[in-house]
């Protein structure tokens, strides 16, 4: 190595060697390097521009390329491989319980106002939960309710139906079916007419079809 260095005082290293040097300098440098700078750093008599031609040719079609940036040179990732520099991790998460319940209420009672959702769930619905469902494009804003304050209503989207494999919201199983499926374990309290609560009943049919939200706010 020191011999190399001494040699270079008198004679420029072979072009192939200069190419190696270029390669190492461009690789390690924190910034693009100009030809003048390269000449300053390489042994006396070197011809960085000549070596650069070789180097560029060598990297043609490779995963990295020698790019000219202004008057300087640097290695750059080949444009077609840029996707390797992005790393997308797809994480599948279960929707939170709050979100599921809110979604279910919207689906079964749509159009539903936030107040209605809260009344049915028995707890406040956080802004984030609604936002998340909106973002997922599973619910969207329906017509404003024609009641004091004109509250916004929420309805489920086509995307929702798609995702859950439903043709329409009416295809959602009713309480009777839920119970039959063992999803409702508790016996209905005495005196409750099941039909009253069944979204499959004619009243609810109306709810789903009727664009006028007034009627379905009883519950």
């Amino acid at each position, binding site marked *: 190595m020191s011999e190399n260095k001494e040699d270079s005082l008198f004679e420029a290293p072979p072009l192939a060697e200069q190419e190696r040097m270029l390669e190492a300098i461009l690789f*390690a440098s924190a910034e693009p390097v100009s030809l003048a700078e390269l000449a300053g750093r390489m042994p006396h008599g070197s011809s960085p521009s000549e070596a650069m031609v070789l180097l560029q040719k060598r990297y043609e079609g490779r995963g990295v390329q020698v790019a000219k940036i202004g008057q300087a040179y640097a290695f750059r990732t080949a444009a077609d491989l840029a996707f390797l520099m992005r*790393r997308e991790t797809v*994480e599948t*998460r279960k*929707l939170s319980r709050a979100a599921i319940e809110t979604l279910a209420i919207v689906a*079964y009672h749509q159009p539903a106002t936030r107040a209605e959702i809260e009344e049915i769930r028995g707890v406040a619905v956080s802004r984030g939960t609604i936002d998340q469902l909106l973002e997922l494009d599973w619910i969207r804003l329906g017509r404003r309710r024609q009641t004091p304050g004109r509250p916004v209503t929420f309805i489920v989207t086509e995307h929702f139906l798609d995702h859950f494999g439903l043709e329409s919201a009416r295809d*959602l199983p009713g309480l009777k079916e839920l119970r039959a499926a063992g*999803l409702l374990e*508790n016996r209905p*309290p005495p005196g409750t007419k099941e039909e009253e609560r069944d979204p499959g009943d004619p009243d609810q049919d109306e709810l789903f079809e009727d664009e006028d939200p007034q009627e379905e706010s009883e519950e």
Partner: protein
Amino acid sequence: MQDADSFVSGDVAERVAAETLIVDVDGFEGPLDLLLTLSRTQKVDLRKVSVLQLAVQYLAFVEKAKELRIELAADYLVMAAWLAFLKSRLLLPPDPTEEGPTGEELAAHLAFQLERLQAMRDVAARLMGRDRLGRERFVRGITQDVTHRKVITYTATLLDLMQGYARIRTKDEFRPFVMDREAVLTMEQALDNLRGMIGFAGDWTDLISYLPDGWSADPKKRRSATAATFAATLELAKEGRIELRQDDTFSKIEIRKRQPDV
């Protein structure tokens, strides 16, 4: 075991060496380091080092330091005491009755320690002399960070949805116990009601007639009101304000104001 000659002949040279070492006493990293330095004056392979000779050198060093009133750290003195012991073991013929390791064993271990320390120093030097990152070998100067993007997809199945809805509705069905308070007459309410009316109940009157207004039509309310009113009459009877009677099982219960004792 060392023969006495070589140990005596080396004596003067060692003392001289020890004196030069004295000046540098702070430069040693402990007694083992000093012993290793001393062993070099023997100019032999560490495997063949004379531990006896080394012990003598070391003790001479400590003596000299004392003469020069140089304060040696405790571990130097501990080592001196141990080497003095080792020296006596090595010089005296082994006592077969004595317990513990022989002088040779102890000496061999010290030689091993010295050799091992020297070996570590040698490889440390080789290690530091390697082509090191940032000195001879260099990393990429312009790095490109991988942009991490976390895409979170939320999923829910129809079953989740149905279970969620079922959960809410089930919760709802528990609610009557709270909500249906309208259909429940508490004993306090019944008592208040009774107290207001009892003053006028001079004659035996059916308990049912004391049910508050609007509590006798709906069977649910009627049941609750009857039970509460009955419990209230028991309470009032206990207080000694009314009397209760029932002629027969399942026949009507009648109450009246307690008659003043005749």
